[in-house]
């Protein structure tokens, strides 16, 4: 078969909602897009542990500390599921991690913002994990089988993340004035970056159309963002807090909330590496990687020694 015929057959399979599996024929660009998207997603899970790691030793009590640790451990697992899914496409995890450590690969910009107070653990769980869930639920139907299965597994674990975050804010919102202020301040700082998590507007999203056609992506950036806004407002009302957007208003005609203009200059700036914590995050990753090198080597030598003994 010619490449054209193969591509046509491939698209027919996609249109029929068939899942593509690792050993199936696929266009080179489909493979490339998936490797980029899945590895970026994996990197985001891993770097995403850092802002929260900052608060493990300072959680207000043992219960909160245990919960936070469990949440962070889940994120490490999500990274692993995703690296494994990427590896089915013929890349090696070590190479992907090298790309992260060298700064060549991207991860979600949201993690370049600092977690300044304990309330940030609440806002991150509620808004950042909430936005991630919105995106990941849609990806459970992505056309590449191993990616879709990883997403299903991740989504099962995510709802605990959002609920524990909301629970932190709910507690603060019922606290004293200082705690209420802390709660509102965290929401104010995380709201706009959370909206940016869905990526640039559809009109400026160059790869989106092809990804939607291949059903790698199932729902557009703007639509997911709108769903997130609509879902979050009533949740914010229950907290008795406000969202930092004076233009937020119900639009009867659209059946959705209108909201203000997102600062895409800031988004691009953080993406380019100039966010408040880009440098710190990468350094933390590099340190962990380098300081763990001897453990990885020793474990391998130990396993080889044991194998020789058994043989």
């Amino acid at each position: 078969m010619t490449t054209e015929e193969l591509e046509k057959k491939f698209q027919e399979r996609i249109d029929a909602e068939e899942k593509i599996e690792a050993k199936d024929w696929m266009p080179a660009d489909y493979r490339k897009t998936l490797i980029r998207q899945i590895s970026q997603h994996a990197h985001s899970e891993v770097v995403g542990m850092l802002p929260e790691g900052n608060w493990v030793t300072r959680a207000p009590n043992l219960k909160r500390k245990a919960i936070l640790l469990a949440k962070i451990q889940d994120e490490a697992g999500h990274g692993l599921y995703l690296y494994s899914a990427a590896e089915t496409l013929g890349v090696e995890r070590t190479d992907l991690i090298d790309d992260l450590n060298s700064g060549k690969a991207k991860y979600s910009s949201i993690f370049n913002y600092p977690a300044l107070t304990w309330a940030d653990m609440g806002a991150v769980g509620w808004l950042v994990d909430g936005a991630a869930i919105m995106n990941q639920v849609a990806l459970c139907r992505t056309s590449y089988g191993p990616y879709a299965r990883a997403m299903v597994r991740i989504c099962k674990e995510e709802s605990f993340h959002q609920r524990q975050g909301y629970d932190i804010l709910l507690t603060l919102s019922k606290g004293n004035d200082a705690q209420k202020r802390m709660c509102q301040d965290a929401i104010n700082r995380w709201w706009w970056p959370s909206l940016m998590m869905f990526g640039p507007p559809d009109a400026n999203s160059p790869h989106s159309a092809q990804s939607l056609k291949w059903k790698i992506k199932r729902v557009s950036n703007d639509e997911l963002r709108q769903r997130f806004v609509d879902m979050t407002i009533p949740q914010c009302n229950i907290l008795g807090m406000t969202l930092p957007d004076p233009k937020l208003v119900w639009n009867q005609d659209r059946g959705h909330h209108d909201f203000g203009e997102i600062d895409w200059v800031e988004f691009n700036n953080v993406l380019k590496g100039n966010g408040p914590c880009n440098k710190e995050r990468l350094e933390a990753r590099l340190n962990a990687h380098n300081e763990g090198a001897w453990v990885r080597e020793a474990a391998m030598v130990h396993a080889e020694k044991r194998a020789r003994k058994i043989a």
Partner: protein
Amino acid sequence: MKNWPLFEIFIRSKNGLDHRHVGSLHATDAKMAIENARDVYTRRMEGVSIWVVESKLITASDPGEAEALFEPAEDKIYRHPTFYDLPDELKHM
């Protein structure tokens, strides 16, 4: 340093059920693969037993040969009970 070997992980979710493929992970050997699989795939009581096997030891059928392998079953519908049109009086067969 290159990757540790890749292992495929199978979990039995409950006694009485089959082990099911859940994903893969890297480990230095099978023992570590089981320990890591415990941490990654059974943190919420998802399993009562774990199998691990090094990925390179699995032989998979070739998707290109799927037709040759699986199509011959398609025209043998008489292998299904619904193929047989039997009288209504005949209950429970």
